[in-house]
């Protein structure tokens, strides 16, 4: 049985004059210890997905419909008490900005020990020992000294390591990481990615990695979901999606990267902008930016259909595949 099973998740935001749909019928599964990437641009709904999984949405957002089965239990139906035993304990979250996640007025030790004591019956000393073990796991030198330090005394990379250590404190089964390396420098990012990969593999922890960076997804995850305007438009094995994307948007996203073009030449850009939540076009949300769009695309939302190795939500996949540009791109 899968660890996490999301069925038809719909999230809405009650705005001033209308209610907008931020997530529209998201369904996916995550096996135990599996690493899943959620890719999309800002406004695609990827962060909202992360928040919904922990039932952390705050007003005006709410889960309108759907199930989030975690270990067979529906997170949407849980009461606050049950949710508290879930959050941080069996599901942990890592955010983008390490500066904001840590409380600036508490030492690292206080924050780690408090987290442990909130969920486990332990003495302070035992909790301290566990904290030290976890800090060692994320390769923090001299962890005993770090426990006495405040977040501002540490560098960005060190802070993100500590946040990972805090996420791992209670041996969760699933970590949701929302752009965990975006705020970091390239060399530090490479270290943190390697560390997260290693920890997930050795502890059999599931990982949901939310990011806009296709390179990061490519190196970290086994499966990938591509989101656009609140829907999953392509899902499948990461390798397949990167090497042979099916949906025109995924293709555009990958082709738009500078490394896909000869230096100095025009990049293959996707025209137009991501639609706002209040103005999602009818039919396929991508149709105004898509060169393959037909009348069908403009009128009906495509279902997500298994097509070879990946599932794609596109009316025109068949035609696309015979397109010359694509043949060329694949070569």
């Amino acid at each position: 049985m899968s660890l996490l099973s999301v069925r038809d998740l719909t999230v809405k935001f009650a705005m001033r004059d209308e209610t907008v749909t931020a997530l529209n019928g998201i369904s996916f599964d995550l096996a135990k210890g599996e690493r899943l990437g959620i890719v999309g641009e800002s406004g695609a709904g990827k962060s909202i997905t992360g928040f919904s999984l922990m039932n952390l949405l705050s007003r005006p957002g709410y889960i309108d419909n759907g199930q989030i089965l975690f270990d067979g239990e529906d997170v949407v139906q849980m009461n606050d008490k049950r949710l508290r035993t879930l959050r941080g304990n069996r599901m942990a979250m890592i955010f983008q900005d390490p500066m904001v996640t840590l409380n600036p007025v508490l030492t690292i030790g206080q924050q780690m020990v408090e987290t442990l004591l909130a969920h486990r019956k332990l003495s302070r000393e035992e909790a301290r020992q566990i904290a030290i073990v976890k800090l060692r796991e994320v390769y923090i030198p001299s962890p005993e000294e770090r426990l006495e330090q405040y977040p501002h005394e540490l560098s960005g990379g060190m802070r993100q390591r500590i946040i990972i250590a805090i996420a791992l404190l209670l041996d969760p089964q699933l970590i949701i990481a929302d752009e965990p390396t975006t705020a970091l420098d390239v060399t530090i990012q490479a270290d943190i990615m390697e560390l997260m990969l290693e920890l997930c593999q050795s502890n059999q922890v599931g990982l949901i990695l939310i990011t806009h960076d296709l390179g990061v997804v490519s190196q970290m995850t086994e499966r990938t979901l591509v989101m656009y305007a609140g829907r999953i438009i392509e899902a499948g094995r990461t390798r397949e999606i990167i090497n042979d994307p099916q949906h025109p948007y995924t293709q555009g996203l990958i082709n738009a990267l500078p490394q896909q073009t000869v230096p100095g030449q025009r990049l293959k850009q996707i025209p137009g902008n991501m639609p706002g939540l209040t103005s999602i076009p009818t039919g396929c949300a991508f149709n105004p930016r898509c060169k393959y769009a037909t009348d069908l695309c403009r009128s009906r939302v495509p279902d997500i259909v298994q097509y070879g190795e990946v599932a794609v939500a596109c009316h025109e996949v068949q035609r696309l595949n015979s397109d010359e540009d694509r043949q060329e791109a694949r070569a």
Partner: protein
Amino acid sequence: MSDAKTDRPLLQIKNLEKRFDLDQGFLETLKFKQGKIVRESRSVHAVNNVSLDVGRGEALCVVGESGCGKSTVARLVAGLLTPTAGEIHYDGQRIDDLSRGAMQPLRKKIQMIFQNPYASLNPRMTIRQALEEPVRHHNPGASAAEVRDKVTEVMLSVGVDPSWAKRYPHEFSGGQRQRIAIARALTVDPEFIIADEPISALDVSIQAQVLNLMLEAKESRGLTYLFITHDLSVVEHFGTRVAVLYLGSVCEVADTATLFSNPKHPYTRALLSAVPQLKDDRPNHIRLKGEIPTPINLPQGCPFQSRCAFADARCKSEQPKAIHQPDGSLVACHAVEEDRLDAVAAG
């Protein structure tokens, strides 16, 4: 180099330094040390002895990680900061010590594009006001029709519909705002553009649009760029030459193709290997020990020695000078100079 005057670089940065004082005011500089009150002021060494040339029509990319001083270099060149030491020459004229009035004619030539399109446009001005203001300021005699024509021309050239001119910046997406910010810089017909991380706040599909726009402007208007970024894949695509900065010092300057095919400085190598690759999933990056030291009280010797696998006694005591390599690149590294790098790698 000095034989032909027309050959001189458009922008020359000579031994540029910038320090930011941490202790401002007299009282803050007083410290209590070993029973005595000492006067001592600490400062951040943001830029140390940086020399760079940018030739006409070039796109020089300055890369490095946060805190390496790349944005400070951009702001120094733009005249937003005054250097602590060193000189900046533009087209043969020294510009870092000019008064505001003397700088006016150069303001038309040197323009800047900023990182955050959400902050670089005045939220209380309509697009039209924002674009007309610089035209009026630099062409006081221009008639209303001339100003409007100029603004329309620039808006069309960056792909912004002129009928949006009545709207305010908050009604636009990040990519559109960055187009408008570029349009604003282009209204005065500059020849040199400093771009400080112009695409890093944008989405991937929009980054390509903005990058294309900047490339087009380069060709159609003959622009020269000083492009600040942390994204190496953008550098490879956009830059004609690259300067790698670490802790306020230049490590390596080379043609883009040379740098990416044959990086020499150990830091450049580590940086290139750390970029997440799309197609192969076994990252093979060079691990650097430790993290970037603070730029307060810089270490003696090479700024990179604390993290370098090739550091020896000489690196710890003596700062390396930039030395010309056979392939035309400039590298500041003792190990490269002594040819130790590949020997160690082989052995």
